[in-house]
C-alpha cells in the first residue's frame, strides 16, 4: 500500500486508495489512524457483502466502540468486489496497520468520480489538527 500522503480522505475519517487496473479503476477503503485513535477500543465491525452497489457518502459498515455504534461512509461510488472478511476477527489490525492490513473493502469504481468531495493528505491533516 502507498504511504498515507498518497491517499484521499473523507471528512468522516475514511481513506481511499485509487489505482487503475486495466480499463477499471479500483478503490481500496479503510479508516484512518486518527479515527481508530478517537474510537479507542473497537469491539465490533460489520462490513458489506461482495456485489453491493454503493454511492459516495452512503454507509457501508458500522463499528462499535465504548458502547457507541458509528457508521462508516463510502468515499466513492461503485460495486464492492472484495471484503476483508477476516478483519472483524482481528480488530487489532486497525490500530497496528490502518492503511495496510486494516483495509476494509475494495470497489470497482463507477465513473466519473466526484473527487472534489475528497480531501488531500494535507487537507485531512488540517481538519484533524482543528479537532474535527
Amino acid at each position, binding site marked *: 500500500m502507498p504511504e498515507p500522503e498518497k491517499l484521499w480522505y473523507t471528512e468522516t475519517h475514511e481513506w481511499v486508495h485509487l489505482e487503475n487496473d486495466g480499463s477499471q479503476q479500483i478503490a481500496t477503503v479503510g479508516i484512518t489512524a486518527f479515527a481508530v485513535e478517537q474510537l*479507542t477500543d473497537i469491539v465490533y465491525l*460489520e462490513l458489506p457483502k461482495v456485489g453491493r452497489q454503493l454511492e459516495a457518502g452512503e454507509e457501508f459498515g458500522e463499528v*462499535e466502540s*465504548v*458502547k457507541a455504534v*458509528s457508521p462508516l461512509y463510502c468515499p466513492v461510488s461503485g460495486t464492492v468486489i472484495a471484503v476483508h472478511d477476516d478483519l472483524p476477527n482481528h480488530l487489532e489490525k486497525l490500530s497496528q496497520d490502518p492503511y495496510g492490513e486494516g483495509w476494509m473493502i475494495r470497489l470497482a469504481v463507477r465513473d466519473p468520480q466526484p473527487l472534489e468531495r475528497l480531501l488531500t493528505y494535507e487537507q485531512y491533516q488540517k481538519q484533524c489538527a482543528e479537532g474535527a
Partner: protein
Amino acid sequence: MDARLITNTAASGSWNMAVDEALLESAARQGVPCLRFYQWHPATVSLGYFQSHRDRLQHAASLHAPWLRRPTGGGAIVHDRELTYSLVVPDTFRLPPEQWYRQVHEALLAVLRQAGVAARIEWNAPARSGPPSFLCFLRRGRFDLFVGQHKMLGSAQRRRRGALLQHGSFLLARSVLAPEVPGLADIAPGVSTDVQTWIAGWSSILEERLGWRFYPDEISDMEKQKAADLCELRYDSPLWNLRR
C-alpha cells in the same frame, strides 16, 4: 441555547426506540438538542446493536419477555422498574462524543448525592477479562455510575453524520426479569423512586452544566410518522431484530 425537553408516558419498546431515532434525525436536520424521559410497557429486554439474539438463551429470567434490538451498542437491558433518558445532540456542539456520557452521568451523580446517596462514577476504562456479560448492568465501563458495587446508570450511543443519540437506563428497583441486578430502592431504602422527582432534578442540573434552557415540548406529528415508519422497518421487524 434552547433545547427541547420531552417527558413521555410508558410505551412499547419498539415505539420508544423508533422515537429516539426520529428525534436523532430531527436534531441532525434542525440543529436543536433534545432530552427525553420515558419508561417501557410492557417490560422489555433491549439487546445491544451487535449482540446476538441467541445470547438471550443465557438469561432464563428474561427469556419470555418481549425483546428488541437497540440502535446503540453495549449489553442487554431489562427495561422494567427503571427510567430511561435519551439525549440527541447536533454535531454543531463540538464536544468529544464520550464527554456526553460524562455530562449526563455527572448530572445524575449530583442529584443522587443531594438525595444522600453515596454514588460514584467509574473514571477509568476497566481492563477486559473474558467475554462480556449478557446484561449491561453486570458490565463495567468508563463513566458508568455506581452505588456501592452496583451499577445504577449505563448509557450507549449511536453516532451519525449531523448528530449523536445517547440513551441510558437508571435502575429504580430490582425487576423479577433480572433478579441479580438491584436497583436504587434495594440498596438505598427510603430514597424516592418517584420518576417525576428524578426527571426534575436531573434535567435541572444538566441545564445548569450545559448552559442550556430546556423548554417543554412534544413529539411532532412528523416525528410520530417517522417513528411509525421506523417501527415497521426496524424495531418491529424480524429482519432487524434477528439480524445477528
